[in-house]
């Protein structure tokens, strides 16, 4: 690695098996201090298992983990004073109010952030005295992040912080995480959302079947596709991949749900040629759409599968 910044997290050769399931299967990772790093992957990729190993909550079968220059196993409390954690599935006690919950978490840390300020940070002032059980999903998730911030941590772990949120709540959380990062702190988050990773993360690792299949800055990964645009089309009658062979600038044809997806370097060049080629094959264009290539397309290009199995 070329940077001078010290690493917040380094792990090598991480493995964790549950019976026959290889949840994490030889994973190397480095998160630099001060960056926001995203673990990206489909359901069951091993993101939660990985992040919980790094948090010291799960013991790996194999591999070495160094967090803020320390290893798990001794003086854990000192290390935990410097970390903030929000888990994917934990539910906070419903009978307590928002403020009581934050005070409780604040009490666990020697140094930390005032609960009143945490309420402001996550725009929960209005819900200060509401019971946790009465909060909306988005408010609950913001509270979970607030709890993770109670110790004013140097390193923040967030496991799918915005899953299931409406776009506005998501945007609010992104702003909060970005502000936290501005203060020079480090974030490791997992997500299904490409947009989230592209907006928040300096670097991402794409995880699949417990391994990292690509790693780098989102823009670099997308550039690595060699084609900034993705073209999707459907024809009548359906055509074979050979139709696209003759068209310059079209790459990686891929068929999904009866539609073709192609990577395109230059739309201006490729589209007229494509229309000609289809005409020559006697097929009519039923639909045609384009979008800028995203991390989603990176994932599809790497695995042939979609990131979200919805």
């Amino acid at each position, binding site marked *: 690695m070329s940077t001078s910044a010290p690493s917040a997290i380094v792990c090598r050769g991480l493995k964790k098996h549950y019976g026959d399931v290889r949840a994490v299967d030889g994973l190397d990772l480095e998160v630099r201090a001060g960056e926001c790093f995203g673990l990206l992957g489909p359901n069951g990729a091993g993101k939660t298992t990985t992040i919980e190993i790094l948090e010291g*909550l799960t013991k790996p079968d194999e591999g070495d983990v160094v967090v803020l220059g320390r290893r798990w196993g001794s003086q854990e409390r000192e290390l935990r004073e410097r970390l903030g954690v929000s888990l994917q599935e934990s539910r*906070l006690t419903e*009978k307590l109010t928002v403020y009581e919950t934050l005070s409780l978490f604040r*009490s666990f*840390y020697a140094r930390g952030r005032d609960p009143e300020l945490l309420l402001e940070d996550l725009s929960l002032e209005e819900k200060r005295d509401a019971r946790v059980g009465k909060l909306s999903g988005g408010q609950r998730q913001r509270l979970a992040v607030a709890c993770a911030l109670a110790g004013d941590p140097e390193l923040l772990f967030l496991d799918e912080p915005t899953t299931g949120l409406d776009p506005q709540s998501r945007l609010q959380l992104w702003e909060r995480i970005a502000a936290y990062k501005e203060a020079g702190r480090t974030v490791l988050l997992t997500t299904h959302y490409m947009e989230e990773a592209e907006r928040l993360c300096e670097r991402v690792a794409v995880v699949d079947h417990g391994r990292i299949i690509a790693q780098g800055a989102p823009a670099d990964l997308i550039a690595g596709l060699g084609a900034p645009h993705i073209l999707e089309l459907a024809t009548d009658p359906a055509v074979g991949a050979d139709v696209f062979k003759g068209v310059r600038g079209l790459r990686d044809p891929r068929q999904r749900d009866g539609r073709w997806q192609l990577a395109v370097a230059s739309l201006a060049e490729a589209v007229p040629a494509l229309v000609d080629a289809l005409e020559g094959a006697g097929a009519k264009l039923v639909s045609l759409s384009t979008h800028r290539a995203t991390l989603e397309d990176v994932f599809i290009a790497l695995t042939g599968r979609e990131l979200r199995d919805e």
Partner: protein
Amino acid sequence: MSERQHPLVALTRTRLLEFVREPEALFWVFMFPVLMALVLGFAFRDRPPDPIPVGVAAGPPAAELSTALSRAGTVKAAVYPDVAAGLEALRTGKIALLVEDRATLVYHFDPTRPDARLARLEVDDAIQRARGRRDASPAAEALVHEKGSRYIDFLVPGILGLNLMGTGIWGIGFSIVNARLKKTLKLMTATPMRHADYLLAQMLSRFVFLVLEVAVILAFGVAVFGVPIRGSLVVLVLLTFLGALCFGGMGLLVASRARTLEAANGLMNLVMVPMWLLSGVFFSSERFPKAVQPLVQALPLTALNNALRAVMLEGRSAAAIAGEAAIVAAWGLASFAAALKIFRWQ
């Protein structure tokens, strides 16, 4: 702005808040034992026995007989039109005895029914007196109603012990398994929170409920039934603390590994049901056969109940119940130590 609380204080406080915001929990802790004592207390309260229903077969002497019987007060006489109707009432248990007067008095009754034998004596006595019999020597009655020896006096300390066990094991057990299920436990272990603080807070919050719980049950027993507290109140309160500690520890142990509420519930019943039955809550544990006595007496609830009764009813000193107290403490300490060792945090 707010000061940081000590984690032990914060944990205890939130546990208490959680509890008082759970109306069902309040009911089970405070109202249930009181209701139980109330129902049992009234069922077994001291009162004159009901008059025994008896029958008189119709005939010329019927009016004279039923007057004599109702004057005696211990039986309640009804007149039946003929012997057959009276026998029918006897067979169906409406009356305990049927009187027929044909030159000799004939008493129809089933001698295997205790109230029938009693009715035979009372009825004969009443009729013979009314017809002029005189006692050979005069007799007077001196009745005994001593407080401290009634069933309700036996029951109240038992219910106190039962409640200490129930709230300790249920209260702590369910709250912990719930926190484990919801992964709040796991989330807390990701903070610098000390594990011992968490477990200790569970026990400490128990002590706060305990003071209320014991006060409610004792005040109720004393005010409503006049149950005596003959020994030192301080010793009694210390004893209940020891009991709460013991069953709190057992609650932690029972909940230390269970991953589901069902599993926890099963374990709790496994621990508690034998003590409900064996530990002398509703009747003396001395009634069990000699062979099982060492086991019965070693149970923490037996020891606690015996000690509570010794202090409340017999006015024993702290020294006199040291043995029982030691058994209760040993169970508590061993359970807490074991729980801390094998506790599953996620």
